[in-house]
């Protein structure tokens, strides 16, 4: 029996193929060896938790980023894509990408504007990450997409906790 109505566009844009792929088969689910920082992201509303670990070189390069945790498709996909996008980037580039993803998810910018603000070699990464921006139509789900990023930023700041409640 299936009497369900056709999917709405905003559901399709939230649960795109790339999100479902990373949500079901997340990359870099592990603890980074010899990590230099580690932080737990916690969404007290839903109980989702993600622990991010990273190894930053003395020259400020994110040599490896990984995560472990339980969460919804959006938060897991976001963590997985983040770990792929940031490996090999400098800390300052990671911060720029975080801010771009944050603005895309909250609807402050669109993909083209966000790209224009970044150096050209980040375009491909941002195209993938922009798939997270479907959450802008779902205000309560924005925190799901940004949770692993907040955790990573806390970890880079030397804190070991991040929460979506400020």
């Amino acid at each position, binding site marked *: 029996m*299936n009497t*369900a*109505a056709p*999917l709405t566009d905003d559901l399709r844009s939230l649960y795109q193929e790339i999100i479902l792929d990373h949500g079901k088969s997340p990359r870099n689910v592990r603890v980074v060896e010899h990590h230099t920082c580690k932080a737990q992201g916690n969404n007290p509303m839903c*109980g*989702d938790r993600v622990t991010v670990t990273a190894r930053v070189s003395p020259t400020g390069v994110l040599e490896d980023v990984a995560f472990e945790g*339980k969460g919804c*498709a959006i938060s897991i996909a976001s963590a997985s894509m983040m770990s792929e996008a940031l490996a090999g980037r400098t800390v300052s580039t990671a911060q720029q990408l975080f801010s771009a993803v944050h603005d895309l998810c909250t609807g402050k910018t669109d993909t083209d504007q966000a790209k224009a603000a970044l150096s050209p070699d980040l375009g491909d990464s941002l195209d993938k990450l922009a798939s997270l921006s479907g959450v802008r139509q779902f205000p309560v789900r924005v925190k799901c997409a940004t949770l692993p990023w907040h955790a990573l930023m806390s970890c880079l700041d030397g804190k070991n906790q991040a929460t979506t409640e400020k």
Partner: protein
Amino acid sequence: MNKAAALNTKPTYDVMKVRADFPILARQVHGKPLVYLDSAASAQKPRQVIETISRVYTSEYANVHRGAYFLSEHATAAYEAAREKVQAFVNAASVKEIVFTKGATEAINLVAATWGRKFIKAGDEIVLTAVEHHSNIVPWQLLREATGCVLKIAPVRLDGSIDIAEFAKIIGPKTKLVAVAHVSNVLGTVLPVREIAELAHAAGAKLLLDGCQGIVHEFVDVQDLGCDFYVFSSHKLYGPTGIGVLWARLELLEAMPPYQGGGDMIDTVTFAKTTWAPPPAKFEAGTPPIAEAIGLGAAIDYLNSLDRVAAAAHEKDVLRYAMSSLAQVPGVRLIGTAPGKASVQSFVMEGAHPHDLATVLDRSGISVRAGHHCAQPLMEILGVTATTRASFGIYTTMQEVDALIAGLHKAQQVLL
């Protein structure tokens, strides 16, 4: 129809007539008819409650227990009449045993902060169960910090039922209080509270029941249940938010120190010494939620105007239908299948996180709760981080269950 024939007729329940009393049920969400399956979090309100609150503020409002003028006398009478309605609804021995609080959470905190601080000492034990809501865990943890008492947790079976023999092992000579849910908000389990009362009293302990779900789904007679404290919130009982009830035996209320100091709770005040008003006023410092209390009274009147036996039977029918329908959805596992349970059903669906499910269902107009339901310790025991919960009320229809099932199939298309 004569009386004999009426008695032989199976009670009929006109759910559509009940629905017509709830204006919000006529609205749409995301262009779809609202299917509200989150009554265990907060129930919708019938127009009888909405109109009562509106009438209070429109033409009958003033502060209570104060002025010697018409409106204040009128408001005081209505506020105290609401207390009498609550007394009758739970069959309390005296109206003095009904304390208005801002909700069940405050009622539990009140007991912990007054009775607990006075009577619980270091090493004393408080017994909870694994199914408790955070609001029946955290106040006791605060009391533990203040007094050095010990919290002991009675286990729950995987189907959500409580093994009374295991429970008996947790209670001992040091047990001073047993504080348990009457009905689990996650699993729907109706706890064996009479047996628990016997065990508690045999050990010389008091029994507090968190009745947030119990008051909605069971017929509560506090004297028959054998508990010492019973707490509930109005907003789950089709009444307004901001008002709840603490019932306690009068001798307990009399022995308890005040909760908060202020107006209304005193007998006489001098800077040297203040004497307290008798219960319930002793626990109702400050201007109370007046319209809310009167609104709760209206909710009770409304429920009493229904055939409550038939309404309860209807809820059970909806629950049975939901359980069997959900069980047929591929990948769905029911969480909470204790015999005789109330109409609250948690479940998980393979490959789909509850939050993703809730988002997809919402776009079909279906409101369900996803998450840990303020019961993180229970989630850990059940081995899940979160569940999806559909909860059913006096207005839920079989068609709404069908809509939920269709929504889950749609979610599988989107998410799997």
